[in-house]
C-alpha cells in the first residue's frame, strides 16, 4: 500500500516544486523525471496486486483491485510519455513567443496537479472523494486550456469551466442521494461512502433512490466523458489548449470519468437488479457514437477532428459497459486501454504536425510525409489504428463490442457498423490530403521526438495480436467484478 501513498505524494511534491522553483531552466526535464518515478511507483503497486490480489488500505481509504490497477499504470505511462513530448514542444512554443516563464511554471505545476487528481480518482475507495478529485481535475486543467490567452482559448476555458462545473454538480447530487440511501440502511458515519462497504451491502440499498441517483451520476460524470449532448466543451478545450494537455485530457480524463460511472453503476446494479442503468448508458453511448462520427466530416481544425473521434470512442465504451455482458465488459476494458494509448499518440503527432505547418487548419496542413516522413507516417499509422484496422488493438475491442451487440441486441449491430464506417470515412477524407501530396513552400521540419508515439502504437499493435497473460487476467477479474460472469 506504500506505493499508493507514494503515488499521491510525488505529484504533490511536484506541484510545490514547480510553484516555487518553476522558473529554473529545464523544468520540462524535471517533469519527465517526476512522471517516471510515478510510473515506477505504479509498477510497484501493480506487482503487489499481481502477487497479493486486491489491496485495501488499513483505514479503507484506498482500494486497488483488478479494475483500477491497470488504469493506474496506464495513467502513469501516458503521463510520462506525454511529458517526454511536452518538454521540447513547450520549449518550442516558448521560442515562438506564445508563452513566458510564469505561464510555463503554472503549466508544469498544474500538470502535476492534474496527475494527482487522476491518481486520487483511481485509488480512492470513497466515492465522495472521487467526486472531489474529479472536480479537482477540472480546476487543475481549466487554466491550462487558456494558457495561450487568446480570445478563443479564454472562451474555450470558460465554456469548459462552466459546463463541467455545472455538469459535475449533478454527480454530487447523485452521490448525496447514494449517501442518503446508505444512511437509511443504518450505515451512517465515515464508512457510509466507502465503495467497498457499499458494494458489499448493495442489495440492501433502496433501489428507487439509487435509480434516481444514477441518472444524476451519469449526467454528471457523463459531461466529463463528453457524452452527447453534453460534449460541447470537449472539442473547444482540446483545440485551444496546448497539445500535451489535449493528449492527457483525451487519454486520461475521459477514461477516469467513465471509470467513475462504472464504479457507481456496479452499486446501482447491485441494488436495482434491473437493466435500467445499462440501458441509460447504452442510449447515451450510442447517441454520442453516431453524432460524433457525423461531426467528424465537418471539421476544419485537426485537433477538433480528433477530439470528436474521442467522443465517438468514449460513446462506444459507454455503450459497451451499458450492454453489461461479460464479453461487452471485457471489450470495453480493452478499448479503454487501446483508445487511451492510441489517442494520446495521435495528439502527440498532431502537435508536431501543427508545428511543422504552423497552423491547426486542416486545409493548410499538406504533404507531411514529404516534409518530415516520421510525422507523416506517425499520423497515418495512428489514424489507421484509431479507425479500427486490424491488426491494431482497437480492431480487437471494436470487434468484440460488435459481437456482444449481435449477441444481446442484434438490431443495434447495423447502427454500430454504420457508425464505424462513417467515422472511418470522416477521418480519412481529412487525413489523406494532409499526409500525402506535395509540401507547401516554406514548410520546414521541426525537432520532434516520436519515440512516445512509436512505443504507444507498438503497444496497441501488441494488444491487438496477443494480450499478455497478466493483463488478460486483470481484465477477466475486472469483468467478473463488473458483470458478474467470466468472459469467453
Amino acid at each position, binding site marked *: 500500500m506504500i506505493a499508493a501513498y507514494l503515488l499521491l505524494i510525488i505529484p504533490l511534491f511536484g506541484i510545490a516544486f514547480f510553484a516555487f522553483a518553476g522558473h529554473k531552466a529545464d523544468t520540462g526535464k524535471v517533469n519527465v523525471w517526476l512522471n517516471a518515478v510515478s510510473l515506477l511507483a505504479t509498477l510497484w503497486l501493480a506487482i503487489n496486486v499481481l502477487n497479493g490480489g486486491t489491496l485495501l488500505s488499513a483505514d479503507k481509504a484506498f482500494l486497488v483491485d483488478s479494475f483500477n490497477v491497470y488504469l493506474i499504470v496506464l495513467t502513469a505511462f501516458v503521463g510520462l510519455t506525454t511529458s517526454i513530448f511536452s518538454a521540447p514542444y513547450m520549449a518550442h512554443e516558448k521560442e515562438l513567443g506564445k508563452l513566458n516563464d510564469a505561464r510555463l511554471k503554472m503549466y508544469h505545476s498544474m500538470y502535476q496537479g492534474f496527475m494527482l487528481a487522476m491518481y486520487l480518482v483511481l485509488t480512492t475507495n*470513497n466515492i465522495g472523494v472521487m467526486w472531489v478529485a474529479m472536480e479537482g481535475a477540472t480546476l487543475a486543467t481549466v487554466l491550462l486550456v487558456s494558457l495561450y490567452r487568446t480570445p478563443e482559448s479564454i472562451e474555450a476555458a470558460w465554456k469548459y469551466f462552466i459546463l463541467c462545473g455545472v455538469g459535475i454538480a449533478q454527480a454530487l*447530487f447523485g452521490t448525496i442521494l447514494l449517501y442518503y440511501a446508505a444512511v437509511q440502511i443504518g450505515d451512517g458515519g*465515515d464508512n457510509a461512502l466507502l465503495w467497498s462497504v457499499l458494494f458489499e451491502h448493495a442489495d440492501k440499498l433502496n433501489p428507487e433512490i439509487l435509480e434516481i441517483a444514477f441518472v444524476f451520476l451519469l449526467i454528471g460524470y457523463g459531461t466529463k466523458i463528453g457524452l452527447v449532448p453534453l460534449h460541447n466543451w470537449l472539442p*473547444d478545450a482540446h483545440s485551444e489548449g496546448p497539445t500535451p494537455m489535449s493528449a492527457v485530457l483525451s487519454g486520461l480524463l475521459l477514461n477516469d470519468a467513465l471509470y467513475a460511472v462504472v464504479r457507481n453503476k456496479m452499486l446501482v446494479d447491485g441494488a436495482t437488479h434491473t437493466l435500467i442503468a445499462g440501458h441509460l448508458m447504452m442510449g447515451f453511448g450510442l447517441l454520442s457514437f453516431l453524432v460524433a462520427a457525423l461531426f467528424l466530416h465537418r471539421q476544419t481544425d485537426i485537433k477538433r477532428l480528433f477530439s470528436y473521434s474521442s467522443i465517438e470512442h468514449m460513446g462506444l465504451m459507454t455503450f459497451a459497459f451499458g450492454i453489461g455482458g461479460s464479453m461487452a465488459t471485457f471489450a470495453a476494458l480493452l478499448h479503454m486501454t487501446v483508445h487511451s494509448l492510441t489517442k494520446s499518440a495521435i495528439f502527440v503527432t498532431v502537435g508536431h504536425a501543427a508545428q511543422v505547418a504552423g497552423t491547426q487548419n486542416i486545409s493548410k496542413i499538406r504533404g507531411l510525409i514529404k516534409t518530415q516522413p516520421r510525422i507523416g507516417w506517425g499520423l497515418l499509422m495512428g489514424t489507421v489504428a484509431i479507425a479500427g484496422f486490424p491488426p491494431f488493438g482497437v480492431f480487437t475491442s471494436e470487434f468484440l463490442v460488435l459481437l456482444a451487440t449481435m449477441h444481446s441486441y442484434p438490431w443495434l449491430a447495423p447502427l454500430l457498423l454504420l457508425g464505424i464506417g462513417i467515422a472511418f470515412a470522416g477521418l480519412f477524407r481529412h487525413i489523406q490530403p494532409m499526409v500525402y501530396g506535395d509540401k507547401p513552400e516554406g514548410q520546414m521540419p521541426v525537432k520532434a521526438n516520436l519515440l512516445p508515439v512509436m512505443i504507444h502504437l507498438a503497444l496497441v499493435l501488441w494488444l491487438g495480436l496477443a494480450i499478455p497473460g497478466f493483463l488478460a487476467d486483470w481484465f477477466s477479474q475486472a469483468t467478473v467484478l463488473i458483470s458478474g460472469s467470466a468472459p469467453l
Partner: protein
Amino acid sequence: MTLSTMDFYTQAILSMAALIGLTSFLMLGQSRLLRMIFVFALQGFLLTLTTALVAYSMDNGHLYISAALTLVLKVMFIPWMLRREVIKMNMHRDVEVLTNKTAVMMGGASLMVFSYYVLHPIVHTTTTVMLNALAVSLSVVLLGMLLMISHRQAIAHVVGFMSIENGLFFAAIVATNGMPMVVELGIAFDVLVAAVLFGIFFLHIRTSIDSLDVDLLNRLHEVDK
C-alpha cells in the same frame, strides 16, 4: 399531517427550505447585479443557519465546522469578490433586461414542480421533511442552471454556479446530516479554488473582450461556417 403538529426542528427545517427556495427565485428575477449578489449572500446565510441548527439538534461537532466554512466562503468571501468585480467594471448601475421575464419565472416554477415529480418515487421510504428538503435542493440546483441560461453577465453565471453548490449542500446537510468530514472539506476546498479561478477568469475575459458579457464569447463553432 399539518405543520403545527410537527416538532420544532422539523418546522424550522421546512421553513428554511422554503426560504432558500424563495431566495433562488429572487435571484432568478433580478436584473441588478449587486442586488443579486446580496440575495446570494442571504441564501448562504440561511444555509449557515440551517447547518448550525442541524449541528445543534444532532449534537454533531463537525457540522459546526461546515457552518463556519459556509459562513466564511459563501456569505463573506465570494459575495465580496463578486461585488468588488461589479464595482470595478462599473456595472452597478446597469440594468440587465431579461428577455421574457415572465417565461423565465414560469419556467422556474415548473422546475420546482418537476423536482417534486422526480423525487416522488421515494416518498414511501422517507419522511415528508426529507422529501421536501431533497426536492427543494434539487429545484435550487435547477433554478441555478436557469439563472445561468437566462442571464448574460459572467457575474450572474458565477452566482448561478455557486447557488447550485448551495442547493447541493442543503441536500447533504438536511437529508444526511452532512457528508463525511473528509468529503466536506474536499468540497469546500474545490469551491474555494473555483472562486479564485473565477476571479482570474474575470480578469482574462475583461482583457480579452473588454466586457463581462458572455454573449460576446462566440468565436468557437461546433462545425465550420
